[in-house]
């Protein structure tokens, strides 16, 4: 089985994001980057599929040289090979997905795995777009994968419950938290990753259709309001929840 995992290099969750001086991008000074957490579930799923079915695993990311560190982490976890689609420009989801799809098309992969979303821009668009460009079935928010003779049964999260779907390989899947418990890279894995290949290719050009006009921080959270501390506060609480917060 040939498994491709597409991963992203995103600001660390502890980063205090600041808007850059251009008002359109984040200020990258002092920001630490990490492997997108949802992508860890995709990598673990790929490794488990390989352990079960044999074959090969490959990890891919689109971006600048800085993405190599994140690719190397996937290699340290046990993925065998990495491709960096080099591109320093700002692209929208469509453009990124197009370039990824062009590369994946040449690989004849059975499974193409993503994290369900990147925690930088939260667009949640790329897995679906890539599947569309490749003409493949796509399952999102996957929490369980069962593959048997090319038949794929996936469990996915939906509002208030789970849904079980059936499809077949080749396909695109987007991993959700709960799919598995990602392994830690071992010291041996980290050492081995130093000598595993990272192939660099120029990312295919593609148009972007969405342009960021401005970026701004959300207004600071309003402090909570204490209405009362006993049962007498309940009527007023209900009134406020209904009329001010409009949640009832």
């Amino acid at each position, binding site marked *: 089985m040939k498994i491709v995992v597409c991963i992203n290099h995103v600001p660390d969750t502890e980063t205090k994001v600041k808007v850059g001086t251009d008002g359109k991008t984040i200020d990258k000074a002092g920001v630490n980057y990490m492997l997108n957490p949802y992508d860890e579930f995709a990598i673990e799923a790929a490794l488990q599929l390989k352990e079960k079915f044999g074959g090969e695993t490959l990890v891919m990311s689109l971006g600048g040289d800085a993405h190599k560190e994140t690719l190397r982490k996937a290699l340290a976890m046990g993925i065998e090979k990495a491709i960096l689609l080099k591109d320093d420009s700002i692209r929208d989801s469509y453009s990124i997905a197009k370039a990824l799809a062009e590369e994946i098309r040449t690989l004849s992969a059975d499974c193409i795995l993503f994290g369900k979303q990147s925690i930088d821009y939260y667009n949640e668009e790329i897995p679906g777009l890539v599947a569309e460009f490749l003409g493949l079935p796509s399952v999102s928010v996957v929490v369980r994968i069962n593959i048997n003779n090319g038949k794929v049964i996936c469990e996915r999260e939906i509002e208030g419950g789970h849904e079980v779907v059936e499809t077949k390989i080749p396909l695109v899947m987007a991993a959700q938290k709960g799919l598995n418990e990602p392994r830690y890279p071992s010291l041996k894995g980290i*050492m081995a990753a130093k000598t595993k290949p990272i192939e660099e290719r120029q990312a295919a050009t593609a148009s972007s259709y969405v342009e960021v006009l401005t970026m701004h921080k959300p207004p600071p959270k309003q402090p909570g309001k204490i209405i009362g501390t006993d049962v007498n506060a309940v009527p007023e609480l209900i009134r406020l929840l209904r009329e001010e917060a409009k949640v009832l």
Partner: protein
Amino acid sequence: MNEQMTMEQVAPSFEFTESMRMVLEVARNFAEKEIKPVVMKYDESQEFPLEIIKKLGELGFMGVLFPESYGGAGFGYLEYITIIEEISKVDPSIGLSIAAHNSLCTNHIYTFGNEEQKHKYLPDLTTGHKIGAWALTEPTSGSDAGSMLTTATSDGDYYILNGSKNFITHGSVGDITVVMARSNKSKAKKGISAFIVENKTPGFIISKKENKLGMRCCDTSAIAFDNCHIPKKNLLGDEGAGLAQALTILDGGRISIAALALGIAQGALNASLKYAKERKQFGKPIAEFQAIQWKLADMATQIEAARLLTYRAGYLKNQGKEAVLESSMAKYFASEVAVRATNEGVQIHGGYGFIKDFPVEKFYRDVKLVTIGEGTSEVQKMVIARELLEP
């Protein structure tokens, strides 16, 4: 010697390499997810955390410094320091287990063992399948290790060990112990030899598991030898070289205790920063009071200085250079810094620092080991002065 030191030797680079950052991330995530939830459980029960140690073995943390051909991870001292610091920020007693296992037992066999001994013992140790201990101290010989009384009497194909050792890390949970014992009574310091002892050997006795102030889940026990027959092929290096070997091993060990101290100090600082921002008195967070700010500033500055000394000693070891002076300086300074940092950490927490709900209480208890174990602060000063005064 300082005059001859170039800047490159002092400061090869202040940046972490990519692999150091990866190692740090693994150690930090592992400590947060796998160790933090059970720290107080193990502290209170004093149970050796075998399950965690086995997982550390799978990650390669029980054989950081040793080549892959012996099952190790093949990293150097800088990654080793990083790992011990990160684990000790969460649980110093597990940091101590990693340090003692790697630096003492395993490193002794790696440094002074022959190929047959290395191939027989190292793969199980470097992967954490077996736990290593190292026995130098005795009830009547601590800093004065050369006055030890345990004997190793030659008898045909065996040495017969008799005597007792105490304060032995992993003494009651270890599988393999490197033991220093007197093989020649007429030669004082040169009459001591080192042996690989399998703990299951008849005559190896676990006399007492100690009930300690801190570092409580890291096993410390007294052991004894009662006509314990050790095959001659388990002699490490030459007969009579045991004490010199032990002192060399302690040089590397000191770097690991410095890293352990760093972790404790940084853990205490992190907890204090968090608490000082949350705790309000007189209508504002206590972090806004200068009395608290100065404590935090002193802690942070001293920790950073200790970190630089420790990494520099590690750098010299990686280069295969002499690091007796630097290791002792790092161990002495970092451990004294850690004692001060945990003291101030408890002070910042006030009453909450005196109860077990906040991590500084445990750091305050655990820390005292680092000015005592693997050479007291006074012994470190003795070593430093000797290095300075001897040509």
